[in-house]
């Protein structure tokens, strides 16, 4: 079996979880900003993850595993996850503050409608999922290094 692709799956999982952490940090950091550099209110971001059908490795990897024979391939198994970032269109949080330079005609200042509670839950979940991926990768590493000891020391 191609051990490298197992590492790739764990790496893809870690990449997605790190992206979720990044996006959560970004949302929390911008929670109290009243406008972005390009104007307008900051829009909260969200990571959308989905499982990929095939294993990573590209055409060469596919050709290689085909050449190696399908002795240890598993039918119907997904690869690692993939993710992209979407902008959430949530209503801004309005605070009445007429003296603020970004206040509108009614004296309201718009702040991004970041869901603070949801972001915190998201952060902890992403952190734990990241740890799980690290442990899974270490288990793979252990198995590979133990495999290398076959026939040694006897």
């Amino acid at each position, binding site marked *: *079996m191609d*051990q490298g692709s*197992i590492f790739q*799956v*764990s790496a*893809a*999982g*870690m990449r*997605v*979880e790190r992206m*979720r952490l990044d996006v959560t940090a970004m949302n929390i950091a911008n929670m109290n900003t009243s406008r972005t550099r390009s104007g307008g209110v900051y829009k909260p971001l969200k990571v959308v*993850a*989905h*499982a990929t059908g095939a294993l990573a490795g590209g055409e060469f990897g596919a050709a290689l595993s085909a050449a190696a024979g399908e*002795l*240890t391939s*598993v*039918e*119907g*198994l*997904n*690869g*690692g*996850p993939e993710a992209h970032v979407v902008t959430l269109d949530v209503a801004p949080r309005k605070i009445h503050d007429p003296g603020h330079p970004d206040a509108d005609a009614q004296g309201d200042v718009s702040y991004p409608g970041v869901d603070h509670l949801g972001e915190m839950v998201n952060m902890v*979940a*992403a952190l*734990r*999922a990241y740890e*799980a*991926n690290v*442990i*899974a*990768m270490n*288990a*793979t590493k*252990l*198995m590979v290094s*133990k*495999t290398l*000891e*076959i*026939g*040694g*020391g*006897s």
Partner: protein
Amino acid sequence: MNIDPIAGSTTALMRMALDAAQMRHRVHVTNIANASVPEYTPVRLDFGDALSRARAELASPSGQPELQALDPVAVPATDSRGQPLGSVELDVEMADMVQNTMAYQVMLKGLAKHFSILSMAASDGRR
């Protein structure tokens, strides 16, 4: 699968079992990596009748099992009542993975022992 006259059926059997453990490990890793994907359903390996077939062949009086290559299929994981799981249970997945890793190491130890017996035979009983 041909049986090596020197290594015997132990090596072939071990190879099969190690392959199976490694494929199981890949399934656990994939489930853990996709744990946060909402629509992902965890999978398990279905080895079909490969194991019972191997056992029956080993029990046959000829004693020379014709071991087949494993050809597992990934099927949706089910809970204790046979219902398919909707999302990955991270704790169960981790526990299964650790157990599988341990089993893999035990098998490697067994293989090493087998090889050391062969080595002792080859060196005329001297260590």
